[in-house]
């Protein structure tokens, strides 16, 4: 044993400099490299697939779709590749949830479950700084990786948009494009981290993260997103293909008359035009009905992207702050 004498240090030295933040980089890397490698493998495989499949798509589109919506385009491009596009987007929708569950949830839950928090929180780094150093660094790394995937996906998705097969506002692709994808990834990670700190066990925290994330993503797509800005109104609509129709209905004599789909519309049509020798729109127009649509124009795409990314970022900051606060407060 090396005989060393303790350096005499005045108690409560105010010049005590904290352990520098960058030391946390190695700690994070060493403790989470398996999870990060998993994310890299997942996103790497996605990237390779998107690249190869995307080249094929772009060629097929260039060959078949001289005018979008043409029969040739429908037959050789959207008809052939559309289903692939749907499978790819469905899979990508799950990626943030997987990252949140398998990277976010264990970060704190494993420390609590195995008792290693007693080690980690009594080191000189300090438990609050430890929690911030962990969560913020991992959040930034994951969001950056997600942004890279999102850029590649938007390139992949371009022929589908150009062919009029999908609009960027579609719930299937909106949160995979632009800044929404990294924001959703960030939110999933933050949900996982907080769930881990609240539940303190890895497996239940993973399950809770998947449930909460799925609920939030569903609510945003179905209920929330259409209300980011007040929709525009059009009667006798002839909307551009990029517009996202939020709602449509019929009026007569200035009053609401009919929804634009459903059994009431069908029975009205049967009463008005029993011969069925005109198109439904024609039939209703001749009987004095006016078709209205409320919609979000395609030009609002980036505004909506930033609104969605904005509230998700704010939510993530709140969730991570709550996790850090719990780390500080949690009694052994």
């Amino acid at each position, binding site marked *: *044993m*090396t*005989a*060393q*004498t*303790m*350096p005499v*240090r005045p*108690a*409560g*030295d105010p010049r*005590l*400099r*904290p*352990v520098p933040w960058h*030391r*946390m980089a*190695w*700690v994070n890397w*060493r*403790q989470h490299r398996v999870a990060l490698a998993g994310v890299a493998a997942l996103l790497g495989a996605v990237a390779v697939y998107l690249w190869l499949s995307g080249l094929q798509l772009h060629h097929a589109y260039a060959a078949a779709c001289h005018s979008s919506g043409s029969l040739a385009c429908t037959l050789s491009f959207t008809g052939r590749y559309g289903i692939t596009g749907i499978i790819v987007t469905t899979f990508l929708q799950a990626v943030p949830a997987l990252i949140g569950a398998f990277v976010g949830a264990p970060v704190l839950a494993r420390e609590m479950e*195995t*008792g*290693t*928090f*007693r*080690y*980690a*929180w*009594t*080191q*000189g*780094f*300090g438990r609050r700084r*430890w929690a911030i150093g962990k969560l913020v660094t991992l959040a930034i790394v994951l969001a950056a990786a997600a942004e890279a995937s999102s850029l590649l996906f938007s390139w992949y998705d371009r022929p589908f948009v150009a062919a009029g097969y999908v609009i960027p506002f579609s719930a299937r692709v909106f949160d995979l494009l632009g800044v929404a994808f990294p924001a959703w990834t960030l939110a999933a990670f933050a949900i996982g981290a907080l769930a881990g700190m609240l539940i303190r066990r890895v497996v239940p925290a993973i399950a809770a993260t998947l449930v909460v994330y799925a609920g939030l993503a569903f609510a945003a797509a179905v209920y929330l997103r259409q209300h980011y800005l007040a929709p525009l109104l059009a009667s006798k609509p002839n909307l551009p293909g990029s517009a996202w129709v939020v709602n449509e209905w019929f009026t007569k004599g200035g009053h609401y008359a009919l929804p634009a789909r459903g059994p009431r519309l069908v029975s009205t049509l049967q009463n008005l035009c029993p011969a069925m020798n005109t198109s439904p729109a024609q039939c209703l127009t001749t009987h004095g009905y006016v078709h209205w649509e409320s919609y979000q124009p395609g030009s609002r795409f980036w505004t909506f992207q930033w609104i969605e990314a904005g509230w998700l970022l704010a939510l993530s900051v709140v969730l991570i702050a709550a996790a850090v606060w719990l780390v500080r*407060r949690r*009694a*052994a």
Partner: protein
Amino acid sequence: MNIIEASGLSKRYGSTWALRECTLAIPAGHVAALVGPNGAGKSTLLNLAVGLAEPSGGAVTVLGGLPAGSAAALDGIAFVAQDTPLYRNLSAADMLHLTRNLNRRFDRHYAESRLSELGIPLNRRAGKMSGGQQAQLALTLALARHPQLLVLDEPVAMLDPIARHDFMALVLTAAIDDGVSVVLSSHVLAELERVADYLVLLAKGQLQVAGEVDDLLASHRMLTGPTPLADRYPPGPVVNTRRGEAVTHLLVKAGADDPVPPGWEAHSVGMEELALAYLREPGAAALPGPSRGARPSEVAR
């Protein structure tokens, strides 16, 4: 300097008081043993001292007045928790590097040479180590930080006798050679007797005995005499009575100079005997008056 100082310290979990109105000052430069039955509040007191738990009432300071859990306190205290939690998937070398990155001071040379003396390969994962090796690794990591105070919660509970002996030897070396103050809780009274020179006894969340072992031993005596005479002894200073059919043993608060009643024989007591007597009598107490400061000799260390 007091290495741990508590005043009116209380901790409640739900409706249960784990620690109640504990006022205590452990001076620096000791190996202090924290003894008590299960649920007496030993771990609670240690968790409060290292800042893992927040008091429900009262206050605890460490290292001469630093608030427990503050940055300066964490810097000067190394804690080895019960069951020595380590990252099971990390190797010894990784644990060394991790601890180095999380602290201002870390004596890598000391840690590595210590592990090689112990025969723990640097590339072995913590999860693959024996209980003894895990405990030694956790202790090595703690000592390599050159703490002023080493806090150990039930460090040898899971160890076999040899590992226990080796572990305590390392603790003692650190205390003697490097002047590290040590506070450890344990059930193993025999082990503590060899290393501890300060005793803190807790019962049901309350402080029962606190003081230097030498002072405590000097102020207690074991009296042995005929059972029929046992009740004649003035009950005040009697801590514990062990009544046999013919012979009764009384542990009494009495110094070597105090008179021994006729018919009785006085012996000095050991720490284990003393601790057992108090553990059997949770109502008895031996506490110092107003907390004393450290003696000059201790500050010099």
